[in-house]
């Protein structure tokens, strides 16, 4: 009897929790369908629009948002590709090979993951101005600062999980270390590499500070920055802002639904000791 009650209480708590998470999205989505006249005044607090419209989405797509999404996609893809490759080989070396200075390197990697981004943004901005790299896809390079340490960290933990016996038998067969890595370890570690790639992609897609500073020109805005510029100086077009929120959230939503397991494994790889 008591268990039944507790179960119901748990159920209610979970439903409440899910509602709190989802409510802002739903409300924002409903607003994006209201015509301008219903966004202000009494209509603002009605759940459903009297005259639902796609006008805000149309206005949005006439603007900069598609270009910004394209920029985000290109920058995130470039960064994810090279960061994952660089991190994979470095993590393998740190996890499996013996060499002097390994601990120091790992310490540096962990320390840089704790640096606030704002400590690097000034000098990197000036470097970019000097090289004429502002407003370009070169921003992918300094993104290594936010993505590389995390990717290395996730991958070191994954490589540590690959059984050592595989390598030892390859060694007996006379394979070089490089061959052992590419032919035996890498295929086994693919799920881990994929996890690191997803986490990298999301963190770069979401980055704001460097994107705001290094790509101030609207033609090179990323989605995260472009959406904040929808608020004009004197007037806020909430219709377009909410429509943009919906549009920018959709890619994230798809990634989360498709790769839920990988994301959780990446997020928790540091937090759990097995």
């Amino acid at each position, binding site marked *: 009897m008591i268990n039944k009650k507790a179960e119901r209480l748990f159920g209610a708590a979970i439903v409440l929790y899910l509602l709190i*998470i989802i409510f802002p999205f739903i409300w924002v989505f409903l607003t994006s369908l209201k015509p301008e006249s219903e966004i202000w005044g009494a209509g603002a607090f009605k759940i459903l629009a009297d005259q639902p419209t796609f006008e805000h989405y149309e206005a949005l797509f006439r603007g900069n948002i598609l270009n910004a999404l394209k920029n985000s996609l290109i920058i995130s893809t470039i960064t994810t590709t090279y960061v994952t490759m660089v991190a994979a080989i*470095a993590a393998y070396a740190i996890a499996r090979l013996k060499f002097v200075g390994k601990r120091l390197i790992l310490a540096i990697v962990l320390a840089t993951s704790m640096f606030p981004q704002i400590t690097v943004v000034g000098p990197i901005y000036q470097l970019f101005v000097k090289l004429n790299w502002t407003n370009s896809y070169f921003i992918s390079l300094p993104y290594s600062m936010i993505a590389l340490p995390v990717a290395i960290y996730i991958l070191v933990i994954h490589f540590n999980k690959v059984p050592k016996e595989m390598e030892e038998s390859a060694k007996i067969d006379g394979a070089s270390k490089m061959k052992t890595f590419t032919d035996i370890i890498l295929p086994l570690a693919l799920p881990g590499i994929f996890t690191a790639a997803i986490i990298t992609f999301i963190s770069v897609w979401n980055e*704001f500070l460097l994107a705001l500073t290094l790509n101030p020109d609207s033609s090179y805005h990323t989605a995260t920055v472009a959406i904040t510029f929808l608020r004009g100086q004197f007037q806020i077009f909430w219709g377009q802002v909410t429509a943009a929120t919906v549009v920018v959230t959709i890619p994230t939503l798809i990634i989360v639904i498709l790769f839920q397991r990988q994301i959780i494994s990446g997020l928790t790889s540091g937090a759990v000791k097995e």
Partner: protein
Amino acid sequence: MRKMNAWLDHHLGYVLVIPALIFIILFSLWPVAQSTRFSFFDFQLNDQQKSGLYFTEQYNLKLMHETFDYIDYYLEIEKDTVKQSSTQERIQDTQQEILEIYESIQAMFPGQTGIVSINDQEHEFLVKASDQVLAGLEALYRIEDDFNLQEDIMMVASELETSIIQPNYVGLKNFQSVLRDPRVWQTIRVTLFFTSISVGMELVFGLILALIMNKAMIGRGLIRTFSLIPWAIPTSVAALMWAYLYNGSSGIVALILARVGIVEQATDLMLTSSSALWSIIFADVWKTTPYFALLLLAGLQVIPDSLYESAMLDGANKWKQFLHITLPLLKPSILVALLFRTLDAFRIFDLIWVLTGGGPGGTTESISIYGYKVMFAQTRFGYGAAIILVMALCVGVISYLYIKFLDIQLISD
């Protein structure tokens, strides 16, 4: 070939970490070192005399060349406007005089361009030269005639003195100013308040949620997917969403809070400092608690059931089980999550930038926001770097305290 393979086999560790190291050096270590250098200079991009890092006195050759060009150009125009031919001759003479000074300066820096270092002797000479030019021009303008450009020429000529750049190395002065800057202390207070309250709430709610999720029989996948969404969406998007919900005229959350009586009027929410700060905290708690819960849930799931079963046999109740089994075994997960969340919260930028921009009246400004404004709105990169370094120092102290006293192990061997 074989030799190379053997070499590669032997040094493979280094070969494989070098690319990562190059990126870390270029985009993490070098910028931090550079920021440290900036912090010792009065380095301001919008001030011609301070837009570089100068230990010694410098001379701006480019500005000097431009200045002489302009003076000559203006005098040429004056020659056409004046009435008397005697004045024209005087202008001619002054031009000649100035040209000689120009050539003598040029002779000092053969083949050099841009900004060059100068010694005391050169300094004296350059000051004298610029005085001579000014004196020559002043003498010219004492003549009564229809001059047109006196003010312009004198202003341009004063650039000759500006070409002499004083060293802007200030040692620790920027740090002294940081410590005396009330806005720094205000932003540190705001940042600490935000960090402790939001991380504290995230820990408590996250733990409760993790315990509930761990017991949930149905819909685990759904709960996990939902929990990931707030974490996965960009902070700027979440901030805009909350900006809409909080806005005074059409925001539903603002309306509800006003109805409940937490704020007097819906419009007050973002316009009074304490409620604006709490709004930021709530948005952060909304975005991060689910993530915190997922981290703790993963920790809970590796606690073996057998421990609880034997505790039950010993007659321990649920509360005792929580205190003596769950909490101690979950401690490593909690500490790692706390460390990363604290560091993340301490450097908060995006959420505040988009939600309030630091307002109303700078009362929700975090230290990151203030440092950013000093650097990119006032272009005072030296002082901004000092603010940021003080903040980085705080981050270092926080990590050190966590790792030392709470005994966090980030990677187990």
